[in-house]
């Protein structure tokens, strides 16, 4: 490759990220790999849903009925990767951990890119 062009590309792509930012990206990647802790710890300590985030089915077990409005709204949206997993029926730890990591990477990458785009559109202040 033409060395000038290479330097130009390198400056455009690589030079914009400093050492601290590189370190943060590595840190974020490590966090993505560690997310299964977020399902294994609750499993180990026998902890269930977050307060107020129960399914309609669970609410029925608690109070004997499903509130009318809750029943009406609870299925209003079908998320493509509901609860950070593809096949919730497969309870195996390996399956759930694997999909949790993949969801973490997909979600964090989307969040990162969308936030970058929004920031670039908004911020023109070079100082």
């Amino acid at each position, binding site marked *: 490759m033409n060395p000038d062009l290479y330097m130009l590309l390198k400056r455009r792509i690589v030079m914009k*990220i400093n050492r*601290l*930012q590189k370190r*943060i*990206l590595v840190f*974020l990647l490590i*966090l993505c790999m560690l*997310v299964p802790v*977020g*399902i294994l*710890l*609750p499993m*180990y*300590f*026998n*902890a*269930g*849903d*977050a*307060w*107020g*985030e129960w399914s309609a089915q669970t*609410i029925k077990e608690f*109070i004997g009925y499903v*509130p*009318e*409005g*809750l*029943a009406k*709204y*609870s299925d*209003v*949206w079908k*998320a493509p*990767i*509901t*609860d*950070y997993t593809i096949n919730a029926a497969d309870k195996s730890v390996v399956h759930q951990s694997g999909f*949790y990591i993949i*969801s*973490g990477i997909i*979600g*964090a*990458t*989307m*969040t*990162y*890119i*969308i*936030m*970058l785009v*929004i*920031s*670039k559109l*908004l*911020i*023109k*202040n*070079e*100082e």
Partner: protein
Amino acid sequence: MHIPDGYLSPQTYIPLYGVFISAATVAVKKVKKTVSAKNIPYLGMAAAFSFIIMMFNLPVPGGTTGHAVGSAVIAIIFGPWAATIAVSVALIIQALIFGDGGITAIGANCFNMAVFMPFVAYYIFILISKDPRKKSRVYLASFIAGYVSLVLTAILTAVEFGIQPLIASTADGKALYCPYDLSIAVPAMAVEHLLIFGIVEGLITATIVSYFLGNEPGLIYAFKKKDSDENK
């Protein structure tokens, strides 16, 4: 703390959508004015951090789960308005793609975790810590900012849950939305955040703020802001 669809009545979630959208509009203007382009890569990373940290569900043994949010640390380092946008992006993606938090509750969830929480954290921090050279004081201030802001955000969320039986019930006294009132929701959510999740948010906030103070002290918004005020 991600309120699902069906737990809030329209009388609650529609006004909260309004409040959130107004706050987000102001945030866009403030970020445009006050944030430097040098911070753009950091803002992407901050939003991604918030997304990831919320996946670390922590247990109340034998009970419920909860997690840190990351709003406090983002507010202290990049300012509360930037935190509003960054955490909102994470929350909206969690709702749309992963069904974590309801679509009807996006306004409520973003208001709680991306508007209320970063501002509470930011003002607690600048109230306690005024001098970046006093490192242990910065650590303490960051811890308290993270701890208190998460606990208060949990209580705010519990109030939104707990007022539902008052707002909307059937003629025979059955709940239409969240069935638990304030006397159940508030203590339940306050205690778990006071004892466990708040401490985690505090430690995360203190550790990261201290790390930035050691490596890139000029970046920290909470201190920069005060410098410019003094120069006036």
